[in-house]
């Protein structure tokens, strides 16, 4: 009964989110309306409401805020994609900072596992952020669309293993002492990892993508830590969340120092998504995760498709310089 009520509330919340995204104030403003046609406070208020629901959905769907934030805000709000990516990184960073201390103290996140991975990912996130800010907006949107649709495929197909079989730790992880004890209510087990070098190499790509698109990277961290390197699922999820606080920090500085941060976009987003996360954690106890997961996949597929469409449209416009207006729209990526 209670579950149905919450699921009903969530559906209603999702309907509100969808309506806000599709309703005329946002999309029409983004499309064509004069920028000063609406009171200044409307946009931050809308951001607060949308990111609040996004925070709930992100927790229930088991994804970071950034992966929902960038395609949705970039696709349906009037802000330039440069600022959306900067804010997306800060959103993902704040979520990771908020969760990190608790996960470390509970020994669910492993500092020893995170440190070598973070070294690779954070260096590459800087490179990704610089690439991202150097690329034209329509190329970023195109690549973002492809990436988001790729994430949908990963979420759709990737398997998870609660306790992966790691018969023998590899030499590097043994030398670095990357192992631990995992306790669940019904089981206590020692864990160790293998394939450390391939795992670290994969984090080069993950870091670049996190910095380039401002997505956070939990969607990629968890499968690599869990399936490739063999850390238990909960250790992988917790370490991934903590890892974002390091990876996204390095990229966030690049966006901050290059001026790609607008407080009017960042502050309501941080507050909204964190309030939503607090509510989401409470709802998580009674909600149906499978329904939410499908909902997240649906939202991401839609937002990724739109980003891809916008990128292709802008690229076509850029290659057909028929009018000043067209050129300007392409340049601004809107």
């Amino acid at each position, binding site marked *: 009964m209670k579950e149905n009520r919450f699921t009903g509330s969530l559906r209603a919340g999702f309907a509100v989110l969808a309506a806000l995204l599709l309703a005329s104030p946002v999309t029409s403003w983004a499309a064509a309306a004069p920028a000063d046609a609406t009171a200044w406070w409307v946009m931050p208020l809308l951001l607060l409401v949308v990111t609040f629901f996004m925070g709930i959905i992100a927790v229930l769907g088991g994804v970071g805020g950034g992966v929902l934030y960038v395609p949705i805000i970039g696709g349906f709000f009037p802000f330039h994609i440069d600022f959306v990516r900067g804010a997306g990184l*800060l959103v993902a960073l704040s979520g990771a900072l908020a969760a990190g*201390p608790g996960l470390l103290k509970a020994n669910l996140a492993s500092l020893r596992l995170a440190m070598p991975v973070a070294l690779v990912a954070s260096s590459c996130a*800087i490179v990704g952020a610089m690439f991202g800010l150097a690329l034209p*907006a329509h190329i970023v949107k195109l690549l973002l669309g492809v990436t988001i649709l790729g994430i949908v495929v990963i979420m759709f197909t990737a398997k998870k293993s609660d306790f992966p079989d790691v018969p023998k730790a590899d030499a590097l992880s043994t030398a670095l002492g990357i192992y631990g004890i995992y306790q669940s209510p019904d089981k206590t087990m020692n864990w160790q990892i293998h394939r450390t070098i391939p795992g670290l190499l994969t984090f080069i790509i993950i870091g670049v993508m996190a910095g380039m698109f401002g997505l956070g990277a939990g969607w990629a961290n968890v499968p690599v830590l869990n399936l490739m390197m063999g850390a238990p699922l909960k250790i992988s999820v917790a370490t991934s969340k903590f890892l974002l606080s390091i990876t996204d920090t390095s990229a*966030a*500085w690049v966006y901050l120092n290059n001026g790609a941060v607008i407080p009017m976009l960042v*502050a309501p987003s941080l*507050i909204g998504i964190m309030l939503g996360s607090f509510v989401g954690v409470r709802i998580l106890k009674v909600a149906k995760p499978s329904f939410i997961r499908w909902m997240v996949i649906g939202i991401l597929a839609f937002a990724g498709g739109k980003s891809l469409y916008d990128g292709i449209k802008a690229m076509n416009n850029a290659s057909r310089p028929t009018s000043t207006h067209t050129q300007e729209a392409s340049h601004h990526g809107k």
Partner: protein
Amino acid sequence: MANEKNVASEEQLLYATWLEKGMLIGLVLIVISFALYVTGIISPVVPLDELSNYWNLPVKDYLTAVNNNFLHFDHPPTGWAWLTLLGKGDFLNFLPIAILSGITMLCYAVIVPVFMKKGEKAYMIMAIVEVLILALAASGLLKAGH
């Protein structure tokens, strides 16, 4: 290993403690600074009712326009230039953002002596290199643009 307790290591707990403090300070400050900004208690560089004319521009055009129309600096405000503008409502928000972005560097710095004490050279070096990487990112030396 099987008899060990599931207790976080000394450096992990130290890291968590510093991370928690920095995160709380940053989050509280961002709520306060944003309230000061949107209520107009501290006036911004870009007036609130004009901001929507700028936020759809690419970052380079945005910075140039803000500089030309409001700041009149020799160069658009990138890097740490926001420090000189903390008296303005919008730029005041950069302080908590910088705290949230900077706390990880501090966390790494405080665990270096623990690794040194334990004789864990590999992790000590990793922590130092990470601090240097984050310091490079924060330095403003890395320029990007369309």
